[in-house]
């Protein structure tokens, strides 16, 4: 069906239909960082929802999503996807850049080929993308530390938990946390503890660290990994405040249980949804966004609003949506 549709413009040309009524098909390539990371599944749901909405609202228009995402974080693979999608003649590309420097050249190439590119979640500032949507990773780190400091009454020892030390967006968040901690006089950062990005390893790491450093009274999680399980924080929540990124369904349970005080959320669904909207405006209406940088708000989830936030996942959960 899609191949047929993608021929449409030419066909309509032959038929000489009037432009207004001309059946138009837009295919947008969407490239997230890693299939392995559940937050991007919400982005995919968002993108597909936007496509559906646009197809319904604009008669004669079909929008399809070509989702291409590496299994695990791999900037080089992302670059390859940008090139391949461009050569496949997609009408636009939305990408969350695993590495800004690395993706610059391929994004520029795409733009030069009249394939508009929008970045979400992680930007490539130097590149020729026409718009960015999301929240800055470093700002996210800062946010986490602010919330944590507040919970800790401004004083105490903080441990930072991160995943792959070499992943750009994680180190950006860690920097944010460190920066904010430096601003807070009462706060001492013990160290950044890295573990393989599986819930089990993360939970194990936290428990070992807490056990041998009982004076730790605050945990800043720049990713939600350990919280993708049920009881990762036993032996920790009794002794320390925990603020984390990624308010996904299971992490939210921890807030409900009072084991995690605050979850800082990014606009996961919006990443996909807004990016597709931006692309559509660009290629269909020829409209550029008012500003290149479209900053979204953090979602701050705590015991007060946890239930209403949780409702989002009814929509965002890929299995729920499919």
């Amino acid at each position, binding site marked *: 069906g899609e191949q047929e549709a993608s021929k449409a413009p030419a066909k309509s040309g032959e038929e000489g239909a009037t432009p207004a009524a001309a059946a138009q098909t837009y295919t947008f390539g969407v490239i997230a960082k890693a299939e392995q990371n559940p937050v991007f599944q919400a982005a995919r749901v968002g993108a597909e929802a936007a496509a559906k909405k646009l197809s319904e609202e604009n008669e004669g228009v079909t929008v399809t999503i070509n989702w291409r995402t590496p299994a695990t974080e791999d900037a080089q693979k992302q670059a390859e996807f940008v090139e391949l999608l461009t050569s496949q003649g997609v009408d636009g590309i939305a990408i969350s850049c695993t590495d800004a420097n690395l993706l610059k050249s391929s994004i520029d190439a795409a733009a030069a080929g009249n394939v508009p590119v929008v970045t979400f979640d992680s930007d490539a500032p130097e590149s020729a993308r026409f718009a960015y949507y999301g929240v800055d990773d470093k700002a996210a780190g800062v946010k986490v530390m602010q919330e944590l400091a507040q919970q800790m009454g401004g004083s105490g020892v903080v441990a930072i938990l991160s995943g792959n030390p070499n992943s750009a967006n994680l180190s950006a968040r860690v920097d944010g946390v460190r920066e904010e901690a430096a601003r807070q006089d009462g706060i001492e950062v013990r*160290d950044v503890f890295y573990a393989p990005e599986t*819930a089990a390893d993360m939970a194990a790491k936290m428990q*070992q660290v807490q056990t041998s450093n009982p004076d730790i009274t605050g945990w800043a999680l720049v990713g939600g990994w350990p919280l*993708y399980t049920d*009881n990762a924080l036993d032996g920790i929540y009794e002794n320390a405040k925990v603020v984390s990124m990624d308010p996904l369904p299971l992490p939210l349970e921890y807030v409900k249980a009072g084991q995690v005080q605050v979850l800082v959320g990014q606009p996961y669904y919006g990443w996909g949804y807004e990016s597709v909207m931006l692309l559509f405006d660009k290629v269909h209406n020829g409209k550029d966004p008012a500003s290149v940088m479209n900053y979204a708000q953090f979602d701050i989830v705590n015991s007060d609003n946890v239930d209403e936030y949780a409702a989002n996942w009814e929509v965002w959960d890929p299995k729920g949506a499919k």
Partner: protein
Amino acid sequence: MLRRLASAQEAGLVLVILIMGTLLTVMGGTKQKQFRIAIPEGASIVEYDASGSETPPGTISLQQIAGWRVTGDGSPTTYARDEGYSYNATQRAFFGRKTVSKFLDRENLVLVAKDASFIAIMAVGMTAVIVLAGIDLSVGSIYGLSALIGAMALQKFTNAETGLLLSVPLGIGICSLVGLACGAVNGVMIVGLRVHPFVITLGTMAAYRGLIFVISGGQSVGNFPESFTSGFFKAEIAGTYPVPVIFMLVVGAIGMFVLSKTVVGRQVYAIGGNETAAKYAGIPVGKDKVIVYAMLGLLAGLSAAVYLGYLGAAEPNAGMTYELKVIAATVIGGASLMGGRGSAIGAVLGAIVIQLIDNGMIILEIDQSFNQIVMGVAIIIAVVIDQAKTRFAPKG
């Protein structure tokens, strides 16, 4: 088993572990640990300031408080703040602090053993595979897939009230079955297609992981009955959660027994030592191989069940890159990748050694940035030590 433990193979590792333990104890130093003091029902609490004048709790600011006095039945006990005592109104309890060794703290030791156990259980199975001169890269994915399907089964067939007698056998059963199936698939392909196990399991590693992703949609699956988690796999015993450790020890013992005492076990060594000779001796080489890979799968499934019960959820990334940890543990445990040599208990000890290195980095407060470097170098050193030993001792 004691006899075997004393034999060259494992003795070396036990020694290594003891040395590491001693170093960590001596160099790790001590930590201030909190302990809880419950307040007897109906006892009354007052706080007193420097001057000693008593006031009901919460009247004066924390800084002014010198301590608390509790009057239950009998004479009052006082908890002075400068002795490190603190009062937790919400829990209505006192917390004291005691100084304990960072490493030799029971809680820490159990944690290290527990963290090793998930790897160790699989390493026991991997030992048999490596003794066969085989290898299995898909073990991490099998672990993840078993966990996922086990979790879905638990969600489907149990509810919050379900008792231990249903939930635990169900969880273990499903996980083990899935693992067994995956392992059998590996084994059958390796034997049937006569393709090197590295290739087959490289393929199934990706395939099983992909399956996890398709089934789970990238989301993790949780919320099991209490009876399965805190009721069993995460049962608290003396302030620790040692159930996984128990599983590790039992599996290690059984593996040891099977490999060194049963006919199939010895046949595995025979095949690893000289496959042609094994064939000539009428040993069912193909059958044994399938069994061994299936058993590794089963143990990966069991390990997954323990993981489910201990952490209470299955996430799609479970077991990512575990294959390398498992193989490392097995090899440190004295298994030879050329086949014919390896020990189940050794593998368990190997897993513990790896955990100790990790734990040591934390206890000695080494900059975590060096974690990977230390880990990599340590693995090589561990194996070199192990081999140096076996090179002088007669090999067996």
